[in-house]
């Protein structure tokens, strides 16, 4: 990981640990938890789209698999929560592999529709066969580790954001490694990458599975935090929402996933004040943001920062 990212991770860690000290407002912490859950999914999609150049409209499917499998295993089969989460992630990765092998032959819009189809099929399956059907089911066990069960909002806040820190460290390491460079290389020239002995398809499948692992982890955390699941949260709408987070946050930078998740999660909360106008305002803000912040928030902030910084250096030189 390079120095800027190491500093950013350090700052994030400090912020995560300070945040609950600064505010005791459980509502803000709850929003923080949902930002975190969305971030995990968005980080995965950023890597998939921004670095592997593949689009997915099926993240809700993996998110749903993670949530439902983990919830069912721990509730109906009495598996320890940690074990059920790991199993859920394994199931999601198998599903992702099976989907990726035929799908990644597809390009652009075709890939988008194939993943969309997968997500919708998962949605229909949990709607038809999931416990409780469309009405959903509750009383899912809380998250517990080494016999300690997490109850309070603060604990979940820490849990989820520690997960994010670990995920970011892993992802940044990965992107800085040979594998990450190879992914960036594919973007510039797929043919050249192939002739250098890199199995692009295999690499893309791995990244696809990675994004599914993240999404399913987020789903499982969601299930054990809210302790209630119904299919409505796992529809295409969620996939599109995550896509929006990634694009608004900035597809070319992995931190964009978190930035996008913050905006897209907080926006409806802020717009509560607008009552009926909220969906109107929401659409308007999204349109304007996309039109005028084309690169996304994080790359744009970096640009602004760099320009300021570089100008200063030049002045000093003169």
């Amino acid at each position, binding site marked *: 990981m390079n120095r800027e990212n190491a500093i950013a991770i350090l700052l994030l860690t400090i912020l995560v640990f300070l945040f609950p000290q600064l505010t005791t407002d459980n509502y803000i912490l709850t929003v923080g938890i949902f930002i975190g859950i969305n971030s995990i999914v968005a980080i995965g999609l950023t890597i998939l789209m921004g670095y592997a150049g593949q689009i997915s409209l099926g993240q809700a499917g993996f998110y749903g698999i993670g949530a439902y499998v983990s919830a069912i295993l721990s509730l109906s089969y009495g598996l320890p929560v940690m074990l059920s989460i790991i199993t859920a992630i394994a199931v999601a990765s198998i599903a992702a592999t099976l989907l990726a092998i*035929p799908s990644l032959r597809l390009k*652009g*819009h075709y890939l988008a529709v194939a993943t969309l*189809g997968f997500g919708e099929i998962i949605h229909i399956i949990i709607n038809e066969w999931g416990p409780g059907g469309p009405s959903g089911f509750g009383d899912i066990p809380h998250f517990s580790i080494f016999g300690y069960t997490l109850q309070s909002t603060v604990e979940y806040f820490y849990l989820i954001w520690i997960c994010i820190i670990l995920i970011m460290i892993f992802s940044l390491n990965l992107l800085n490694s040979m594998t990450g460079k190879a992914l960036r290389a594919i973007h510039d020239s797929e043919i050249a990458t192939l002739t250098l002995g890199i199995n692009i398809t295999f690499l893309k499948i791995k990244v696809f599975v990675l994004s599914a692992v993240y999404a399913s982890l987020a789903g499982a955390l969601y299930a054990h935090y809210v302790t209630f699941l119904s299919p409505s949260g796992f529809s295409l709408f969620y996939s599109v929402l995550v896509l929006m987070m990634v694009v608004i946050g900035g597809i070319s930078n992995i931190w964009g996933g978190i930035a996008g998740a913050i905006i897209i999660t907080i926006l409806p909360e802020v717009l509560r004040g607008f009552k009926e106008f909220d969906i109107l305002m929401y*659409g308007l803000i999204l*349109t304007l943001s996309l039109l005028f912040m*084309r690169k996304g928030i994080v790359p744009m902030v970096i640009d602004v920062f760099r320009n300021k910084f570089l100008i200063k250096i030049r002045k000093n030189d003169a």
Partner: protein
Amino acid sequence: MTLLLQFLFSGLTTGSVYALVGIGFNIVYNSTSIINLAQGEFVVIGGLMMWFFLEGMQFPFSVSFSLTLLTAAVIGLIMERLTIKPLLKKGDLLLMIMVTIAISILIRGILMFKFGKDPYTYPAFTEGEPINFYGAVITQQTLWVIGITVLCIILLYLFFNKTMTGRAMRACSINIRAARLMGINVSKVVMLSFIISSVIGALGGIAITPISLMEYDKGAMLSVKGFCAAIMGGLGRNRGAVAGGFSIGILEALTAGYIHSGFKDAIALLIMLFILFVKPAGIFGKAEIMKLRKF
């Protein structure tokens, strides 16, 4: 036999709308390579504005009909000029597609604000009893829907093959750079494609509303189904969208009739996935053409 016929009629009705939405996708796709995910919203605009002019303002049918199409065209025009045109030069497809999603949310917000959340409907185009056909029943409005779809297909075929403008638009779909060098005003073509696709969407909305009602948030579902139809048939090919739309509609009806209605969407999607895995460019799509385009 009667059962099968009845299922087919049901499939044709829903399939017509999917096909129209799919054609709308194709027209915009051909000139810009993007998928206009606000396409379904134009179907809703068609249905709701028609109600507004016909029932709300009490205008005669033909006036309401023309005004509705005009409204849709203007909204399509505004949308293209304000949001797509400034982005087109940079050519960031993903960004443009996300903008169409944002616009669809915006349109939905405006429609909700104006019309509320209730469903709307108006009388069928022609009064009269449903027609009995070998024991299966088909309403007159269903015939209208199918008829309008067929008419659209014929008119579009004539437009794209027999008129100068239409040919220019086709040229753009084959090679946009070459078209530009040939002196075709690409910006105008893009604008026109948005207007045509909006009008087609609105037409679908006008025709289907007496059967299936219309409410402000129906658009998203129609967009998804139309998208699937267009992809299944092969993006950019209108006959593909028609085949895709009708196949999805009929598949849904047959699954509902013979297997189980809870899985009708799932089975239609599974078959679509299967087709894509076997033919990655859709039924009528050409793999060679796909290679030339980035999306």
